């Protein structure tokens, strides 16, 4: 008879929490964009990981291949991600929700495939290295200033990640509460009603999509710095669906819920690493995805508004 043992000592180590903290911030940023699209605007963006990939790789390629400075590459790569969002959104946002969802999934997969196969530009499966040198100098000096021990080397990134999250959170919260945000919610409810009142529903959808693209790109930069190495495997479709799990656990329509959901889901995922079951590594990895699948099913079936979502604001309609 096997007993379920958890290696609690892992939870005590600071590196665990720093790693969790960074990933929570990265995923929360990614999911903020998803919330704007799904929770506020009612457009089913299932390709959010694609914008993460576009941002991260555009930055890496600009720095490593084209010799740009890291800091200059960030706004440029963000613009590229926004351009992708606009190009994708223009023909597809007029489609019905299901079709748009499929188109966005296709977009994310196309991005990943292109990254994987355009070896000349992106290094393909071999990946890209060396884009974070500028960041590392800052990180190292911060580490020295703060007198951090070597195990805490990632603390500077943790700080930057959470500051970025805080800034984007504030921005999106303000956007959500503005008249523009009100229009997004109106579009979510009934596009034709919005048009009948003289407002261009399509334009609002496109803008919402573009903002999500930009936010996705930012999460990509942070992921790149965390991994120090980019490969197409970091941008599988499952990333979007993990983000969805975080979105619905936290609650549709709630930006604070995004952070809560990201934290809960990430801790559960990371926690499975430390289960001492007689399982192989692959089985533990499979278990994590099974958990994500169960979260998606159970939350939608039993408590669709998640933790902080409001039932009235729930996007229940088809």
């Amino acid at each position, binding site marked *: 008879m096997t007993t379920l043992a958890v290696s609690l000592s892992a939870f005590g180590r600071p590196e665990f929490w720093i790693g969790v903290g960074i990933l929570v911030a990265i995923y929360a940023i990614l999911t903020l964009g998803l919330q704007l699209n799904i929770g506020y605007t009612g457009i089913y963006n299932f390709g959010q990981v694609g914008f993460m990939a576009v941002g991260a790789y555009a930055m890496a390629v600009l720095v490593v291949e084209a010799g740009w400075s890291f800091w200059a590459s960030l706004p440029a790569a963000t613009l590229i991600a926004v351009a992708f969002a606009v190009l994708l959104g223009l023909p597809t946002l007029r489609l019905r929700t299901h079709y748009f969802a499929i188109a966005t999934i296709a977009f994310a997969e196309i991005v990943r495939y292109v990254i994987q196969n355009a070896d000349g530009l992106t290094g393909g499966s071999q990946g890209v290295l060396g884009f974070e040198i500028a960041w590392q100098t800052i990180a190292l000096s911060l580490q020295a200033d703060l007198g951090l021990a070597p195990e805490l080397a990632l603390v500077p990134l943790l700080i930057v990640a959470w500051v970025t999250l805080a800034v984007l959170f504030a921005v999106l919260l303000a956007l959500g509460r503005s008249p523009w945000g009100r229009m997004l919610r109106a579009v979510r409810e009934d596009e034709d009603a919005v048009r009948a009142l003289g407002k261009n*529903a399509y334009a609002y959808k496109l803008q919402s999509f573009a903002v999500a693209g930009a936010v996705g790109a930012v999460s990509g930069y942070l992921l790149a710095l965390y991994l120090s190495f980019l490969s197409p495997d970091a941008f599988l479709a499952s990333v979007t669906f993990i983000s969805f799990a975080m979105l619905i656990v936290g609650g549709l329509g709630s930006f604070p819920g995004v952070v809560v959901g990201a934290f809960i889901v990430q801790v559960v995922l990371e926690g499975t690493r430390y289960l001492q079951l007689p399982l192989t590594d692959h089985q533990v990895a499979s278990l994590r995805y099974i958990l994500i699948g169960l979260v998606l099913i159970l939350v939608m079936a039993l408590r669709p508004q998640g933790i902080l979502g409001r039932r009235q604001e729930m996007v229940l309609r088809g």
Partner: protein
Amino acid sequence: MAEAPILTVEDVHLRFGGVHAVAGAGFHVARGSVTALIGPNGAGKTTLFNVVTGFVRAERGRVSYDGAPVTRRPPHAIAARGMVRTFQLTKTLAALTVLENMLIAAPRHPGERLTTVLVRPRAWRRREREARARALELLDDFGLGGTAGDYAGTLSGGQRKLLELARALMIEPRLLLLDEPMAGVNPSLGRRLLEHMERLRAEQGVTFLFIEHDMEVVMNHSDRVIVMAEGQVIADDEPHAVRADPRVIDAYLGARRQEPPA
């Protein structure tokens, strides 16, 4: 007619999967008038509204509003110019509050532009205050003042009709196309709606074109009646003339013969 008509519809044709929903409809609507559009079910009235307001593209025909052609313009552009329609099944935005429903209709609001909100976060406060004041004023006019903070989804059917009309007025329309404004509304509420319409016409010169089945309303409250049947305009005259028109009687009787028993 002394002035140019505010709305001109010419030779509109539209097919829906084999059915000739609108088959060559045409008429004028005079400024400041109240015109009723009637006809048996399936005559093409709502479809015509959809064409006129840009929600559906006709195969043939021309529509002009206030002297300018609007035939292929998108619906939001037409509404922004002052030709506003309501829907047969009210489109109140259930998950928004009553006040928010009103505010989204406010025209020329800088706070609805993404760039403004991001770059100049204070620039829209004044317009928002104005819009709120106007919205609350209109809600009070329609007796909905107390519901401003409620979710629109909690309103009764009659209240939603009023909200839809109040909301349309936020745009300061010059031509209002109402699709069955009296349907499902109790008589006292209905009287109130008519009073509002009369006041708007008298004080602001708003023109009305409404689809209705309630003959009492049509006969007693409209200057002109247009009758549609099977996608065509078969009569366009003053109420009492239309009532006696044999073609109109035929269309209604014919339709009743074909309709399954209620």
